[in-house]
């Protein structure tokens, strides 16, 4: 592994670590259904998991659908280095993800991994991780990473209703969890931006990490910019390859089109042309 540094414009410094990519069959050891649209798959590596970092994703091969062809990019939800297992939070939104949701214990699951860049560690202590819908997936892994590095992460998680607020216990084990629901069935009523933690004029936050629907990330990024808070967003653009060959998943940045799969999925929010 080596590290290279890119200077963007005059101010932003992006550190990209080169991490070797692999292609392997993992074994499904658990398929935990959370609700009607979410499952958590636990996948066991055939041998020893290589190092993977929060923010990175995997490309899952989906073979059996008449209308599915490409791999599906899925965020790494959590890693257990001792057990050599990886968790993927899957939202069944189409045929490919429904096939993933139907995987059973003992099935093989072929992954290209680990892909993409990673969230950076904050320079200051007060950290908020803001997630909506399936976008909470990489925030659990990042929360664990932050905790292991001496930070006390706070989470703000949003959903349409209480049923959509998933895996809360796992987040609560790492830090304070605030919630919002659009129908008010749990937590603050409204979107994440309506939560009191994001309404104060003098927020006690130094760094925000966010992943979720683009509209949500845009308002979070705007809030961060207005309050001079550093903000990293994780994009989930449509991809074909996942490793920089097809150039399909580009994001519009200050330096033009950049691949979400290799230059991202994590971007400093001020680097994006939002």
């Amino acid at each position, binding site marked *: 592994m080596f590290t290279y540094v890119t200077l963007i414009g005059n101010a932003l410094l992006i550190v990209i670590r080169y991490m*070797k*990519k*692999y*292609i392997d069959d993992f074994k499904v050891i658990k398929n935990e259904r959370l609700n009607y649209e979410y499952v958590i798959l636990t996948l066991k590596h055939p041998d020893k998991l290589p190092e993977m970092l929060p923010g990175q994703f995997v490309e899952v*091969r989906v073979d059996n659908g*008449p*209308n*599915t*062809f*490409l*791999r599906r990019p899925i965020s790494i939800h959590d890693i257990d280095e001792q057990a050599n297992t990886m968790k993927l939070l899957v939202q069944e939104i189409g045929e490919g993800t429904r096939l993933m949701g139907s995987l059973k214990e003992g099935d093989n699951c072929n992954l*290209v991994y680990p892909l993409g860049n990673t969230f950076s560690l904050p320079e200051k202590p007060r950290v908020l991780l803001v997630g909506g819908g399936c976008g909470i997936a990489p925030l659990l892994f990042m929360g664990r990473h932050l905790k292991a590095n001496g930070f006390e992460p706070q989470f703000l998680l949003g959903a349409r209703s209480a049923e959509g607020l998933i895996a809360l216990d796992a987040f609560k084990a790492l830090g304070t969890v605030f919630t919002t629901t659009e129908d008010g069935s749990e937590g603050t009523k409204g979107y994440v931006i309506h939560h009191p933690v994001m309404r104060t004029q003098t927020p006690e936050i130094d760094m925000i990490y966010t992943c979720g629907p683009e509209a949500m990330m845009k308002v979070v990024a705007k809030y961060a910019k207005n309050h001079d808070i550093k903000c990293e967003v994780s994009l989930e*653009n*449509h*991809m*074909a*390859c*996942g*490793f*920089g*060959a*097809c*150039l*399909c*998943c*580009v*994001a*519009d940045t200050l330096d*033009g*089109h950049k691949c979400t799969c290799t230059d991202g999925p994590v971007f400093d929010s001020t680097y994006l042309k939002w």
Partner: protein
Amino acid sequence: MVDLTIDLNGLELKNPVMTASGTFGYGEEFMDFFDISCLGGVLVKGTTLEHREGNAYPRMAETPQGMLNAVGLQNKGVHYFAENIYPRIKDYDTHMLVNVSGSTIEDYIKTAEVVNDLDKIPGIELNISCPNVKEGGMAFGTSCPSAVAVVDAVRKVYKKHLMVKLSPNVTNIAEIGAAVEGAGADSISLINTLLGMAIDAKTRKPILSTITGGLSGPAVKPVALRMVWQVAQAVKVPIVGMGGIMNTTDAVEFMLAGASAIQVGTANFIDPCVTEKIVDGLSDYCQQHGFDKVSDLIGAMEV
């Protein structure tokens, strides 16, 4: 031991397996997965005279047994390639060929001239068939006079192997094949993507920012096979066949239809190691079917 070598009109290939432009980056992207020196050749990303940002996102739509793309030749231009990318890739132990595209004949000439000076690039693939650019690209490859004009002009300045990539979006592909052969092509590759489109019924909007895009993957294979066979009847120069090749059997079929070599494209996205498997698979196929040389498969379809 099966002889996998192919003489592509003077360009000696280790084996018939190449990678299609725009699906394999500059080869570097795949080195974590396998050693690309096992390949017959690599067609690097479409290269133009000037930097191109490509089309707006979204640029891709998954379709049954295939995908549409509308990348639009995003690349940093041939001078950047020569100065920054070429030094990194020139010593790979396989033929690194540059796919050259342009908006005007002058663009093609200037780009080809720059690549001509790169010692370790033994050939170019002239892309007269990109469906995703507003000017040039496919427009050159869909009529005989314009195809001849661009191939003829590039032939005058480009001294090494000149492969010409044809568009399938034509009425009579054999005519175009014969025309570019007459204009000096050393080999002909086909097919580029088929013009297609996808609509999201939920939002009632096109999925691609450009509305139309290029279809690739197994969905196009029967069309590609037919076109390779038709062009093979019409020309003497070797043909490099592609279009939906996913495995060894597909590669064999293209050779039987008349291709001397093949390119694998979209399949690289699904199995980054697929080309290495096809190299081994071709050797196994020849052994099992009693061929000493893979070149004996070329045009060996028994009608």
